């Protein structure tokens, strides 16, 4: 986009073109994030109402109350903005924006579709986790700066919770990364192109289990019930949000929904095929960029719809959980995450490794070619072109020697290991 | 069916144990009662709680009643001014009830403002702790030996004991007028 | 010369690193709170990381081939990982100290035995 824009400007104004392109992209993402928050809020109200035998919003914006989030937002904006006398004013003001920025910045690396990604980073998964973890200091900041004991409790709970769920979450994320052989979200999703069976969650039972653990940790990550301890209203009033009102409160609220969408997006890409539908519609219809830009764009749009649908499916599950389950206690959260999720995730990781070693081409292929396979490693490189491509990628630049040492990588590894062993 | 502890033997046993303490008693009434001297209350209470033929494990309620009379009284009553403490007990094991009655002067040694004193039973029944606080708060009886005798329903700095019959509500509390 | 139009070199990074380093040292000198000292150490380690990354970056010098390339990043990576470990141990020590001495004042930590 930036390059197209630059063509319209005088060369000396290239920087302006790039600025406009960057700002437009950021604005677009922001709009997406805000829309996501609004739709999620509406969904939350409607779904919770259904679960509780109510109707939910029915007035604002027609029969289904579409505009209720907007009305709520306007109402909250009109509220008095109170900063407690005991608060650390600067930090108190800064915290909600930091929280929202952390949630929002994850969208930066989240691919909505094949080419619809703000920053196609090579280490997108890692970047996602890193940026998402920034929400934690924001919450702690809010809890501390409020000058309220309830807020402080919320902050301490958040800190205790984060050290529990982050490890199993990361372990679960490692599994699809390992299977795909890349940290790039776009690449991982691309590898799941095809029918439903090519989604990573269906690759083997261990990934399926990892997806389950991922779901639990995602709930904990977004502070949603039954893990909403930092804002547990029954004991901590509203936890770290106790002293917030008006606009700043809304910002926290939107950060929660933005984070929900982001983590659901991560799950969708890592496990549920990203923007690829259960039926490879775009391939069947030929909606790819090699069939022309319009076809490619349509394919991307279709993919984005698919992806957003999956995200909202995840959000719906989260809402469903919230209105069904009571809240866990802090020691139960910690023991759940540390005592159950980490071993489970480790088991899934190990299981996945073994499975991949035994059947690198998947069950069907391995069983079908039982007689032909000699070396699992060889088969690995043979039947997983993506993995091969990833491995050879660093060398594909100009000047790289044709017969590189990379081909001897397994041997090198073995040598290094033996050196280590002998050294001891 | 609940049954009152109306066996005369029970009363005799009690009188034998605490000769001076039992002032009056009627175990055949609908609500059987024993009037106990104030200073012997804990001993009698512990006895009726623990003795297998009484077993009054539960203290249901402590009530302070201000029997008050002066020249302006219109009620047609004949009592001498005094305060009565009623301890309603019940036995779950024997399904019986008992009321201990303690008669106190309205003021200690007749000096107005000096609260009458009675030993606490909060170490015998835990529930007495709050009930005694309430009686102290509203009726104005000092429970000697109570671990934490503070007002419970009224504000900590409230003046007077509202359930005394001669209680005059203050005109205002911390600047808030009391209608 | 407009600094915003000039490209950035290794020197720029080194200057930032120097400032961070000095701030970290000052922090270590002046804070009496053990946690404050810990924060100073983190700053110093980060200053080193900035330099390492700058020396390894191929974007910051004209003769990019002579940079230490990935070595810089890898070293910085090990620094970060070990700094995290160091922070954990230091915090454990501080907590242990606090539990026995009821203070985190480093000036009072003059005994080896708790």
């Amino acid at each position, binding site marked *: 986009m930036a390059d197209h824009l630059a063509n319209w400007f005088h060369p000396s104004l290239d920087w302006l073109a790039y600025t406009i392109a960057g700002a437009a992209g950021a604005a677009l993402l922001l709009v997406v994030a805000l829309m996501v928050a609004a739709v999620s809020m509406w969904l939350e109200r409607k779904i*919770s109402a259904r679960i*509780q*035998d*109510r109707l939910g919003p029915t007035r604002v914006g027609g029969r289904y109350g579409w505009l209720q989030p907007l009305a709520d937002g306007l109402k909250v904006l009109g509220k008095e903005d109170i900063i407690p006398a005991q608060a650390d004013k600067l930090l108190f003001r800064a915290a909600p924006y930091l929280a929202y920025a952390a949630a929002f910045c994850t969208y930066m690396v989240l691919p909505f579709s094949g080419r619809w990604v703000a920053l196609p980073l090579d280490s997108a998964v890692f970047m996602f986790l890193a940026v998402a973890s920034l929400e934690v200091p924001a919450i702690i900041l809010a809890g501390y700066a409020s000058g309220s*004991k*309830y807020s402080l*409790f919320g902050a*301490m*709970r958040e800190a205790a919770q984060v050290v529990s769920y982050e490890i199993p979450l990361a372990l679960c994320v490692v599994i699809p990364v390992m299977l795909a052989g890349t940290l790039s979200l776009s690449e991982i999703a691309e590898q799941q192109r095809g029918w439903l069976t090519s989604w990573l969650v269906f690759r083997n039972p261990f990934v399926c289990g990892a997806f389950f653990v991922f779901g639990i940790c995602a709930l904990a990550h977004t502070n949603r*019930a039954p893990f*909403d*301890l930092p804002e547990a*209203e*029954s*004991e*901590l*009033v509203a936890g770290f949000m106790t002293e917030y009102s008006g606009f700043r409160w809304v910002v926290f609220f939107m950060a929660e929904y933005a984070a929900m969408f982001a983590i659901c997006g991560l799950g969708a890409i890592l496990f549920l095929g990203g923007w690829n539908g259960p039926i490879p519609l775009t391939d069947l219809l030929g909606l790819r960029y090699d069939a022309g830009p319009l076809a490619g764009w349509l394919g991307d749009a279709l993919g984005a719809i698919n992806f957003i649908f999956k995200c909202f499916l995840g959000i719906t599950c989260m809402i469903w959980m919230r*209105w*069904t*389950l*009571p*809240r*866990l*206690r*802090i*020691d139960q959260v910690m023991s759940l995450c540390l005592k159950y999720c980490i071993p489970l995730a480790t088991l899934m990781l190990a299981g996945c490794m073994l499975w991949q070693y035994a059947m690198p081409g998947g069950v069907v292929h391995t069983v079908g070619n039982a007689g032909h396979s000699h070396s699992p490693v060889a088969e690995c490189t043979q039947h997983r072109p993506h993995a091969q491509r990833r491995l050879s990628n660093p060398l594909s630049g100009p000047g790289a020697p044709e017969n590189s040492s990379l081909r001897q990588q397994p041997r090198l590894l073995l040598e290094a290991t033996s050196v280590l062993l002998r050294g001891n | *069916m*609940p049954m009152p502890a109306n066996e005369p033997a029970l009363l005799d046993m009690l009188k034998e144990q605490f000769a001076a303490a039992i002032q009056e008693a009627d175990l055949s009434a*609908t*609500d059987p009662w024993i009037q106990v001297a104030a200073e012997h209350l804990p001993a009698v209470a512990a006895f009726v709680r623990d003795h297998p033929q009484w077993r009054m494990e*539960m*203290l*249901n*309620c402590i*009530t302070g*009643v*201000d*029997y008050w009379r002066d020249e302006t009284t219109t*009620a*047609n*009553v004949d009592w001498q001014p005094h305060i009565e403490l*009623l301890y*309603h007990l019940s036995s*779950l094991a024997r*399904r019986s*009830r008992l*009321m201990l009655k303690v008669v106190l002067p309205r003021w200690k040694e007749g000096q107005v403002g000096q609260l009458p004193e009675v030993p606490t039973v909060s170490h015998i*029944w*835990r*529930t007495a*702790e*709050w009930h005694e606080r309430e009686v102290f708060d509203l009726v104005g009886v000092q429970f000697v030996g109570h671990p934490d005798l503070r007002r*419970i*329903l*009224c*504000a900590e700095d409230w003046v007077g004991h*509202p*359930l005394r019959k001669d209680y005059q509500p203050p005109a205002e509390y911390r600047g808030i007028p009391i209608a | 010369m407009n600094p915003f139009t000039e490209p950035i070199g290794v020197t720029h990074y080194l200057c930032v690193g120097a400032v961070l380093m000095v701030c970290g040292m000052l922090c270590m000198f002046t804070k009496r709170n053990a946690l404050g000292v810990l924060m100073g150490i983190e700053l110093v380690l980060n200053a080193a990381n900035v330099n390492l990354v700058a020396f390894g970056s191929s974007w910051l010098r004209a003769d990019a081939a002579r940079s230490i390339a990935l070595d810089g990043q890898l070293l910085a990576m090990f620094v970060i990982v070990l700094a995290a470990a160091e922070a954990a141990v230091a915090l454990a020590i501080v*907590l242990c100290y606090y*539990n026995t001495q009821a203070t985190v004042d480093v000036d009072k930590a003059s005994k080896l035995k708790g």
Partner: protein
Amino acid sequence: MQPESVSATQIEYDVQTEQMLLSMGPQHPSTHGVLRLALRTDGEVVLAAMPHIGYLHRCAEKIGEKLTVRQFVPYTDRLDYLAAMNMNLGWALTVEKLLGIEVSEKTMHLRVLVCELDRIASHLVGTCALGLDLGSFTPFMWCFREREKILNLFEALCGARMLYNYVVPGGVMAEPPRGWLEQCRQFLDQFQPVIEDLHVVLTTNDVFIRRTAGIGVLSPQTAISYGCTGPVLRATGVCWDLRRHGEPIYTRMYDDYQFHIAAQTDGRYPQHGRQPPVPGSAVLGDSWHRFYVRLLEIGESAAVVRQAIDKYSRLKGAPSGPIPMRTKLPQAAAYLETEAPKGQLGFLIIGDGSAVPWRVRIRSPSFCNLSAVEEMCRGCLLADVPAIVGSLDIVLGEIDR
């Protein structure tokens, strides 16, 4: 400090932090009104919990000394405003005991009917509020929907939805309107599945069990010593219900009725087999049992209401009405306890020969139940405090009077 029995969860905490004084309430979402709990905490662990009450003190006993016994009935409504029928009944029976009145059998059946309906309504709030305290909002809405139906029935009966002034000394204020009994029956028919739903989302819910089982354990000895009554006492395994074990003037109302006392004796509840089983982690006298006892009592009360409808409609004539407004009281005292939903509600009336009592005393069940909170909360986690307070099902209107 040797615990009598070791509970399910034990926390060994090594990093000790500053103690903090946390004031829970009087404005707090989970203190069920204007209760204030002063908590001394070490991190998440509650070292001591001190209840402060009296924020809702309205001098009910003092007011009772100024009004005739008929005039005082609306004030009893305001004690436990979630179970006003039972409050009315306790007062009416005490006055009747003092005056030596006996009401007709038909009146008794009607009183049983409304009081047991009221018990269902009160327990619905009590159970779902515990769910709400643990962060489960949905059952709260379900229970309130059902309670609303009961309130509609009461509104048709006496015109009020909350403060009924219906059961009065001498009888009841009005006869049920035509078709009302049929409506009651319809309500009961559709009500049964709702209890099953509650069992699914709360009783057998693993998270709920983890949050309540083994929490706030009260031994029968401690409970009795604290004067805890009602579901709180029965949850400790003491089979004690004044509807069976009370004074004759009260128990004769229930003599003809078949119902079980929801208390675990000999290792099982009388409803065993028809209701979800007790989870292994639950300890007798914990929050889970208190909740469970209430749910069982809802079922028993529904059965009693069915019987009451039958018995009432079989009898001819009208229920008796109230005594005259300025009935003179004898120079005597009467104390009577009845089984209100929250526990044993006692009224003491001392007459001085005039129409106005010399002294009125209210023995509030929640007052005694709450006094045990200090004992129960010692050493629990902060998040357990709502689980304990919620399972006591207190109403501050009755505690503060």
